[in-house]
Every structure is written in structure tokens, then in C-alpha cells.
């Protein structure tokens, strides 16, 4: 019983991390129709930046902040490159794929093939006991951050003007623009917000999943699964998708270690066969 509960918590904390990555991914996909295949590489970059800053300043918070800022700036560079292929969906996707390869290789040049872990503050180290179960404090902290980000994003999307513009843009960007809104600005802000979330996720994940050269494609594939299941541009979809993917992955690894990947993507593929746009997605 307590083993199952432990696994459920593992699933939930992993879901929180996935949500950090996938929420930015799905917003960018929904609003700008850009499938950012460099999202995983951005996550990895965020992790490395956080590692370097956290090690040199001895401050975890500074590391996370630096990761968010650095990756948001990288996102700005990426977005200006994407302007060259504006309007051509497939060319955009393939270009982000090229950028992912480049970023991944750059990371390999700088950090090599070794595994790094972002150091966490004393307060978050060690286990916490509750319900007669001991559980690592840091993973609970990640779960908390995931929930806080979910709430903040929900408030942003549903209670602010910017959120209203983003939601309107997801439905029909052209009409929003025709009503006199500078949708380009909304695009840039959303893109940088999504990237900053990827950077934060990299810092968070870098502390408990650790950082290594193929971590980017692993997290990318997970967030792809989340967005495919949840539907593009939907926060609720990203949250539910994250929980589904994380649970499938956690229990898949326990029950069928050799076929863990299949356990995630089998249900995803089936879902897609019946709902091609995901749980919360709408036809374009």
C-alpha cells in the first residue's frame, strides 16, 4: 500500500515538472502554431545555466532566476529566426528541430557527457515524514511549484487582459489583429514566457532528474505526449496530460520495465485515433 502511495507521489511530482515544460510548449503551439521542437533543448540549457549559477553563487533561487532569464533570451533569438519562415508551419517545425540539434551539440561542447545535478538548498534536502511515509522534501517542493505555476497561469489566462488576448489569439489570431491589437507583441511575450517556464523546469528537473546530453529529447518526447493528449493551447489539457503521462510512465517503469515507453505511447496513440486533436483541443 505504502509502495503504491510512494509511486503515486513519484508520478505527481514528475507530473508537476512535466507541466512546467508542457504548459509553455502548449501555449506557444496554440497561439503561434509553432511546434517548438527546441523546447527540450531549452529545458536542458536552463538546467545547465541553473547549475553553473547555483554552484558559483551558492544560491538555488538565483540559479532558477538566471535559468528563466537566460532561456527567455534564447527564446527571443529563436523567435527572430522563426520570423524568416513565418506562416509556413512545417518549415518552422523543421527549423526548430535544427536549432534543437545545434543547442544540444553546444551543450555537449561546453559540459561534455558527464551528469550534473543542480545543488539544492539545505532546507529542501532530506526526507519529510507524513501519513507514515518518508518522502524526499525536494520532490514535494517541485510538486508545490507546479501547483503554484498552474494557479498563476490560470489567473494570467483568465483574469488579465494579456490572458484574454492570448486566449483570443489561440482561437483566431487574425481577427484579434484586425481589432487593432498588436498581436506580434502578444506573440513575443508568450514565447518568452513559455521559454522562461522551460528554463525554470530545467533548473527544477536538473536537481532531481539530473542533467545529461540526451535529457533534452527525453523531456521533449514527454511534453509532446502531454500536448498530444491534452490538446493544443489548453492549460487544463496540459495539466491533465501531464498527470496522465507521468502516472503511465511511473507505473509503466514499475510494472513493465522493458516496455515502459510503450505504456506511455500506446494509450496516447489510441486516444489520438479517436480524438485527433486531443482531449481539450479543437479543430483548426
Amino acid at each position, binding site marked *: 500500500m505504502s509502495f503504491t502511495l510512494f509511486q503515486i507521489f513519484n508520478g505527481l511530482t514528475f507530473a508537476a515538472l512535466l507541466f512546467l515544460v508542457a504548459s509553455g510548449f502548449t501555449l506557444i503551439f496554440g497561439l503561434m*502554431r509553432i*511546434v517548438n521542437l527546441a523546447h527540450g533543448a531549452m529545458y536542458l540549457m536552463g538546467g545547465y545555466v541553473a547549475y553553473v549559477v547555483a554552484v558559483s553563487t551558492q544560491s538555488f533561487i538565483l540559479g532558477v532566476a538566471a535559468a528563466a532569464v537566460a532561456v527567455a533570451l534564447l527564446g527571443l533569438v529563436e523567435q527572430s*529566426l522563426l520570423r*524568416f*519562415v513565418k506562416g*509556413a*508551419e*512545417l*518549415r*518552422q*517545425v*523543421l*527549423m526548430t*528541430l*535544427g*536549432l*534543437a*540539434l*545545434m*543547442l*544540444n*551539440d*553546444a551543450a*555537449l*561542447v561546453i559540459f561534455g557527457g558527464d551528469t550534473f545535478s543542480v545543488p539544492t538548498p539545505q532546507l529542501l534536502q532530506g526526507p519529510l515524514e507524513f501519513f507514515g511515509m518518508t518522502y524526499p522534501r525536494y520532490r514535494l517542493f517541485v510538486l508545490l511549484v507546479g501547483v503554484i505555476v498552474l494557479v498563476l497561469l490560470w489567473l494570467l489566462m483568465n483574469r488579465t487582459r494579456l490572458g484574454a488576448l492570448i486566449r483570443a489569439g489561440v482561437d483566431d489570431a487574425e481577427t484579434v489583429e484586425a481589432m487593432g491589437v498588436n498581436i506580434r507583441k502578444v506573440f513575443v511575450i508568450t514565447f518568452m514566457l513559455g521559454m522562461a517556464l522551460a528554463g525554470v523546469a530545467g533548473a527544477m528537473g536538473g536537481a532531481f532528474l539530473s542533467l545529461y546530453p540526451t535529457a533534452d*529529447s527525453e523531456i521533449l*518526447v514527454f511534453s*509532446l*505526449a502531454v500536448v*498530444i493528449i491534452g490538446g493544443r493551447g489548453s492549460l487544463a489539457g496540459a495539466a491533465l496530460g501531464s498527470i496522465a503521462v507521468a502516472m503511465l510512465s511511473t507505473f509503466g517503469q514499475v510494472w513493465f*520495465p*522493458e*516496455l*515502459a*515507453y*510503450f505504456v506511455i*505511447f*500506446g494509450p*496516447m*496513440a489510441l486516444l*489520438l*485515433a479517436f480524438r*485527433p*486533436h486531443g482531449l481539450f483541443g479543437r479543430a483548426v
Partner: protein
Amino acid sequence: MVALLAAVPALFPGYQTSLATLTLIYALLAMSVDILAGYAGRTPLCHGAIFGAATYVVMYYVTSAGGNPWIGVALGIATAVAVSLIFALLAVRTTGVYFLLLTLALGMVVWGVCQRWTSVTGGENGLRGNARPEWLSDPVRFYYFVLVIGLLASFVMWRFVRSPFGLALKGIRESESRMRSLGYNTTAHLLLGFLFSGLMAGISGVLYAFFNSFVSPSTVALAQSVKGLLMAIIGGVGTLFGGVVGAGIIILLENVVSSYTERWSMVLGLLFVLTMIFAPEGIVGKIRSLLGRRKTTKNQVSTQPA
């Protein structure tokens, strides 16, 4: 062109011949990608997985199970078609970016299985051993073998895209709803097109098993699908034989770059970005459009009264 290809072992002996063999194998993969990307209008990112699945089956059957290479070939190709069938059933209803994402994810499943199912696939270490039949062990003879198979397969693909069926696929690329209202069963067309493309990728995967005598998860990884797609794109999507040009360029570049630096993946990425910005129609496509423009300007000149 064929004469030139036939003269390769005489002109470029030794290592360069084996590079040419590799180019031909990848050209086949790039062309199989182009059938979907160029003619059916569905850009796939799973062909590395289909290709690699065939490679794995041949390697496992011949080296681990000690079977006959030709039965291994048959099983490898059958596996490729079976994998394509599963992928196709799930993916044909989607279009554009969704198709790309779904095929990417499906390809990752194959990668994940090859990585984790260590008792059969050898995990990270892969499978090693000679799968090539005795009489093909000479590299020059193997080159001619690959050349003949490649030419036959290219001819079949060329006939395929020009057949009424291939033209119907092109119609679906332009407008699926219109083709459907004309009475075509578009889903069945896409399914068959996918299977045919998978068959060709499987043939090239089998040849790769003969060529490489080694297979590891990186053979089925996303990078392999990316490579195949980039070859098709650089050559020119929708030109079929552009795939040969694309494969030649990438293999050559990979070798030149790798002899100077280890940053091949960086160069590949940069190449992708630059191609998307400057030459999305590819080399053969670009030449064609330039020739086409000259032709039309000539026509305009001749029709204008002096």
C-alpha cells in the same frame, strides 16, 4: 548517370566505394521519405524507426539466432511493413504538424523498445556481427548489389508516383476533401502510400544491416529520421530523385566534417536552419524552378509581337 554510378568502384576505390554504397542505401531511405512528404503531403519523422526496425530484425535473426540471411531479409522487410501498417493506421487521419508529431512519437516508441528490451536488442551495446552472405563479402561486388537493388527500387518508386495511384496521392496532397468528394477513398490511398513508403524504407534498412554489421539504438533514433528527411528536403521534396542528391551531399559532408571536427550534429542543425530559410524547395527543386522560370520568360518573349 547510371554509367557514372557503375564506374564508381573503378574511379573511387577502397573506402570511397563503401561511402558510395552508404549513399545509395540512404538515397533509398530519402526517396521513401519523399513519397510521403512530397507526393502525399504528409511529412513523416518515423522513417528512421522503420528503417532501423528492419536492420534490427536482420541483425537479430542472422547473428543472434544464426538464421539464413535471406530469410532474415524477408523477415526484416516484413517487419518494416508491419511497423508501417501500425503507424499508418494511427497517423493517416492527421495532417500537417500533427502528422509530424504523431510519427515522431511513434518512432520514439520503437527507439524506446530497442533501448530497453535488452534481452533481445542488446540495449545500448546493440548487436554486432556479419549478416552479409558469403558471396557479397567483397565490397565492390556488394556495391554493385546495392546499386542494382537501388535502381530497381527507384524504378518501382518512379512508376509508383506516376501511376494513377500516385497521381491520386498528389491530389490528396492538394486537397483531401476535394478528392474525397470525387469518390476517392483517401484514407485507403494514404494507408497504401504509407505502406509502400515503409516497404522501401525497410529495403534500405535491410541493406544497411548488410553494410554496417552493427546496429544500436542510434540506428532507430530520431536523428536517423531527421537525417532521412533532411536528405529528401535538401534534394527537393516532391522530386523523388532529389533524394539521391540529398543523400550524396549529406554523406559526403558528414565525412568531410567528421574528419576535421566532432561537431557534425552542430553542422547538421545549422544546415537544417539554413535550408529552411534559403532553399526550402531543395536543390533539385530550385534548379527545376529556375529552369521553369527561364522557359516561361522565353515563351513570353516569343509570344510578344515585335
